[in-house]
């Protein structure tokens, strides 16, 4: 069931944020910052864009998502739970011994996860392979791949960008989570983010820029990508790391730590208030 109502999608995205905070708090570890920054993107993909069905989760005809920045998996679990792939009670087991919900996505364990990731820089190559295979058999699948802006410091990303261009993978849509932060600080400080648009443009991508927290803009961007033929697309989604929780926003320190009890309560309160709005 495709959700088209913007307000409804915003509500789902906010629930996803609450779930991220709960998972990380329960686990006492995890990556809230980069998960919160893709909550809107994943919500739009899974509830509005991707051709998938809970009844037939393994259909070869389904669209695929490669969450290349696998550390943000709490966001994916939250969305999959909203979609009914994962039992919501199970979210409490995130990162715990014996759980299906591993610290990084594991396709062998969770229905609805299309690729295991965790070692950064590898997802775009895999998404390319999926896009190539879909084209070989004219299956018509669209392949989505979410990259971190720190992640693209990995050389393999640019190897893969050349491959996507070579094979004109117009069924591939990359989303760059442009939150400007990585672990050691800003991407600018750590490695530099110059000419992001022209880099991807010169590698042969159709570059679309969007506010990664504006549902309507995201939908329009995905539609633009869908209509673009003969080349792969990338949506450079401007986001805020930690989006929705005031004290986590734009703070590198919230990349990979769990909130204390007090912080948890404030975070949940803030997010619940934004639902009412």
């Amino acid at each position, binding site marked *: 069931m495709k959700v088209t109502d913007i307000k409804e999608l915003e509500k789902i995205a906010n629930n996803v944020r609450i779930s991220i905070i709960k998972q990380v708090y329960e686990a006492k570890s995890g990556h809230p910052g980069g998960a919160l920054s893709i909550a809107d993107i994943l919500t739009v993909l899974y509830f509005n864009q991707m051709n998938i069905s809970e009844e037939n989760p393994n259909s*070869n005809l389904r669209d*695929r998502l*490669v969450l290349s920045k696998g550390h943000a998996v709490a966001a994916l679990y939250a969305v999959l739970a909203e979609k009914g792939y994962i039992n919501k009670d199970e979210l409490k087991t995130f990162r715990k011994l014996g759980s299906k919900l591993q610290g990084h996505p594991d*396709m*062998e364990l969770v229905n609805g996860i*299309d*690729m*295991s*990731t*965790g*070692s950064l*820089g*590898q*997802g*775009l*190559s*895999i*998404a*390319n*392979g*999926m*896009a*190539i*295979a*879909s084209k*070989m*058999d004219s*299956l018509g699948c669209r*392949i989505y791949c979410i990259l971190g802006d720190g992640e693209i410091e990995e*050389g*393999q990303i640019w*190897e*893969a960008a*050349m*491959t996507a261009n*070579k*094979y004109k993978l117009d069924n591939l849509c990359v989303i760059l989570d442009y939150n400007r932060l990585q672990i050691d600080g800003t991407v600018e400080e750590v490695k530099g983010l110059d000419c992001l648009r022209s880099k991807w443009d010169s590698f042969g991508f159709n570059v679309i820029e969007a506010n990664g927290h504006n549902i309507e803009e995201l939908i329009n961007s995905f539609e633009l990508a869908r209509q673009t033929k003969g080349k792969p697309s990338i949506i450079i989604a401007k986001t805020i790391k930690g989006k929705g929780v005031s004290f986590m926003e734009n703070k590198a320190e919230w990349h990979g730590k769990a909130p204390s009890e007090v912080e948890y309560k404030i975070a949940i309160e803030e997010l619940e208030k934004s639902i009412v709005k």
Partner: protein
Amino acid sequence: MILDKKIATRQSYGEALAELGEKNENIVVLDADLASATKTSIFAKKFPNRFFDIGIAEQDMMGTAVGISNFGKIPYVNTFAVFAAGRAYDQVRNSIAHTNANVKICATHCGITVGEDGATHQMLEDIGMMRNLPNMTVISTSDDVQTRWAVKEISKIKGPVYLRLCRLATPIIYDEKFIEENNIKFEIGKAIQIGDGTDATVIGTGVTVVEALKAQETLRKRGINIRIVDLYSIKPVDKELIIKCAKETKKIITIEDHSINCGIGSLVCEILSENYPAKVIRMGINDTFGESGKAEELMKKYKIDAEAICNMF
């Protein structure tokens, strides 16, 4: 054994792959700008739509293969062993082995017998690196016939495989007559015993099997009877045969075109120390990089040829 008809296992591989491509439409081949050396060019010519040259981007090639395999196809990825196992190790570990991806990593130019290209191109650690990975099957073939068998056989395994191939042209071991006389069958998880001498067991893999067979012949004339084990299936490995040979023979020698520290010598030691403690002499490259030279010269210098085996007696 046909000593005068030599063919490199990479050549057999390329030809067999093209044949397999005819029978199985799901076979897809990827290379990293080495198609003429890995011999996938034969497949590429026949099936251009199922061949992908990813360029000099081995890490990207591994990942691309994973994505293709997720759609039910069977990718064979090809490059030199030093790049397949070394350059792209993290991709092989995390994207292929951990996900149990149905990807066949066919690595040519293994070992010191790469020859003239020298140390940077002579992969001496790949057996250890690959057999350490859960889900990975590791095969190292010793001649043309066995390689052709392996190319087909690994397509039936559901999961990742590392196939170790050589640049050097070597004699055909398993011609029809030899197979019949020695009652030989290829099977993943099994090793082949050739001869039943009790003076020693010489366990080889890849290019060293022929050397062991030559040594067997020479030693016979000196009244020393050894048996050979061709350890082509490195993982899973035929523990029973190794234990049986240790019980039945006075000496155990392993010989490999690979580091002695993480190759079949180590593997045999692991098996025997737990099951039937015995002294094992490990012949191979001893904690050193290789160098340029002719393959035969290097085998002599690094003592992985028939003469070196004979000198052990």
